[in-house]
């Protein structure tokens, strides 16, 4: 019993450290990518670490009109929830720590927790900018949940039709390539769903064009406007960890291949090789669904954002779902 608890504690700390370090590294890479696309040199990749270090040195100001308890608790909850998501997600071929206790639907719920914490913190800060930001964050959340749910459900459903046991378990999804199960129609559908997930990622991470809740030029930081010092550092860390979580989710759902599936390797070598390949995949996902999207367009107005996610991406997602259903019904690919 004691050893199990110890293992869990060590695992949690390990995952937290991994999430924070890898997340900040991803943010550094993203800033470098974006800079290069804008013909700039950009900051060094270690810059997010420097920023966090700086924030931790600064005063933690709680505004007079704020609800102190909620205001201070929100960043902690956001970071804790982000790290918790990682406990249910694999790293390369290392399966998730708590894989048996939760499935992909749980991850969908957990993804909303940091956002909800930010909303609570925004409302608690008592600034009109933060209030507007919080309202927008809620609307954004409602907007992107639907396309995200379609993408996740469609894949799990296709796996279940193929007769695979426990299709909603992360370990199942991570160990099966949905591309090898689906037929030609399914591939088309999967491509559409990949597109949807690529667009949900910036909304989930509050990056341009979906950074409406923070909107630097409009709301001066929106729901984070009153945050400073340690609290802001915690929110930044939460955003970094969430970047890892979202990119991992995309990798697990759509790019699950590992080198050890194809090349015979010693178990330890396999873990290292898979982890390295996993990092490459995650960086690629970040490049296409965060960096490229955020440099190629303007920020969306909140009503446009809802239209984009509910209408356009909703339709694309449903089309993908229909194609996958057709694929299964017409008996293309693997059907049990």
């Amino acid at each position: 019993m004691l050893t199990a608890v110890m293992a869990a504690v060590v695992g949690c700390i390990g995952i937290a450290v991994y999430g924070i370090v890898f997340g900040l590294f991803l943010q550094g890479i993203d800033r470098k990518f974006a800079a290069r696309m804008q013909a700039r040199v950009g900051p060094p990749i270690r810059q997010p670490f420097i920023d966090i270090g700086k924030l931790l040195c600064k005063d933690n100001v709680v505004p007079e009109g704020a609800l102190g308890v909620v205001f201070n608790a929100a960043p902690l909850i956001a970071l804790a929830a982000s790290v918790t998501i990682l406990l249910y997600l694999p790293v390369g071929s290392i399966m998730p720590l708590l894989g048996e206790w939760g499935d992909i639907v749980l991850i969908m719920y957990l993804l909303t927790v940091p956002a909800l914490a930010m909303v609570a913190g925004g409302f608690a800060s008592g600034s009109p900018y933060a209030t507007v930001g919080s309202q927008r964050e809620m609307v954004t959340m409602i907007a992107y949940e639907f396309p995200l749910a379609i993408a996740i459900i469609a894949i799990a459903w296709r796996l279940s039709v193929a007769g695979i046991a426990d299709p909603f378990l992360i370990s199942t999804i991570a160990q099966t390539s949905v591309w090898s199960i689906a037929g030609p129609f399914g591939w088309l559908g999967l491509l559409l769903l990949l597109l949807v997930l690529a667009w949900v990622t910036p909304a989930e991470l509050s990056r341009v064009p979906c950074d409406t809740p923070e909107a630097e030029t409009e709301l001066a930081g929106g729901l984070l406007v009153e945050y400073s010092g340690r609290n802001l550092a915690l929110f930044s860390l939460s955003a970094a960890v969430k970047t890892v979580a979202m990119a991992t989710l995309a990798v697990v759902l759509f790019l699950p291949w590992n080198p050890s599936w194809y090349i015979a390797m010693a178990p330890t070598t396999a873990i290292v090789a898979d982890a390295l390949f996993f990092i490459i995949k995650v960086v690629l996902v970040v490049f296409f669904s965060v960096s490229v999207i955020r440099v190629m367009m303007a920020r969306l107005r909140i009503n446009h954002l809802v239209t984009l996610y509910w209408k356009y991406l909703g339709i694309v997602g449903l089309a993908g779902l229909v194609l996958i259903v057709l694929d299964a019904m017409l008996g293309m690919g693997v059907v049990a």
Partner: protein
Amino acid sequence: MSDSKPSYNIPIGPIHPALKEPILFTFKINGEVVEDLDFAPGKVHRGIEWMGMRRNPVQIAHLCDRICGICGVSHTLAFCRAVEQIAEIEVPERAHYVRTIVAELERIQSHLLWAGVAAHELGFDTLFHLAWRVREDAMDLLELITGNRVNYGIVQVGGVRRDITEDQFPKVEKTLAAYEDITKKLLKLFLEDTSIKVRCRDTGLMTRKQALELCTVGPTARASGLEMDVRLDAPYAAYGDLDFTMVLPDQYAGEIRGDVYDRIVVRLLEVVQSMSIIRQCIDNMPPGVVMWEQKYAKILATCKKAEGEAFGRVEAPRGECFHFVRMNKSESPEAWKVKASTYSNQMSWLTMLKNEQIADIPIIVASIDPCMSCTDRVAVIGNGTSGILTKQDLHRLSVEKTRRIQGC
């Protein structure tokens, strides 16, 4: 948004990321919609006119460079034209052409700067970086011609201080050729982009009638279809000899709506127009000197002898720039009044911003290309507090002053 929701106030400014210069807006918001607004300029009053009245016109010319960091030539040109009229100084023909070239280069860099700022307000940082990057070419050219990137210090009472020489022509031509490609690219990136179109089309509307009633000037007025351009209406420098027409948004889009998008169209098309004007100037530049008098002592003496009043009007990149000068046979002018283009344009904010969304406030505010430090001419401060003077207050103060002067 329903009417049942209570409205709340959001202050924007004096310091806010959406504003590049200090000004205080107070918005009454319902949901995400602006119900009512008010704004209070006067946060960057620098007392430039006061400084000017303690200097001679030759010195003021370079003080004018510093009224605005972007349209330095326009203010100096307007001031010098006023002084030249009073002192009856005849500017050499070649100087007129050099003034025109520098003024148009300034327009190019100012409009590109604005385009970058507008893109940034929309959250489109890539275009911001692109616009400012290509703006560097115009700045480099200005540095080559005048000696400095900003605060050019080239226009002086009686002409210009530096000539554009033959050996600089290839560099000018090279930059213009580069701009030909760049402007095509910019037009495509700004005007065909869907994310910009959905944000800017039908945002911040101002009809032609409203533009006329609010006395707007420059690209803000032209974007609403109001045909006014000092360069054509009252030609100065070499503009009378040149062949160009007014830029209106229907030349690109086929219609005039008077929204933010049209203001982008007008400014970008004016960059193209400025290039053609510079080309014409270089082709038609007459030979000769560029200064009415090389000896500064004589200029100073002429200005000291001058008596009378005049105004100078110049089409600055942001619109009409107006300087009034009165001289009375003394070292410094007796009166000097500067009216920057934003002074005329700022009232249009009230029309444009009403019933718009919070998200569009930055781009609409930026769409008139405001320049607050050029505009602010007065700050009321007494006993350590600042206040607002109404029309009645100003009238009372004028009467009191007149009585004081008359000694009764």
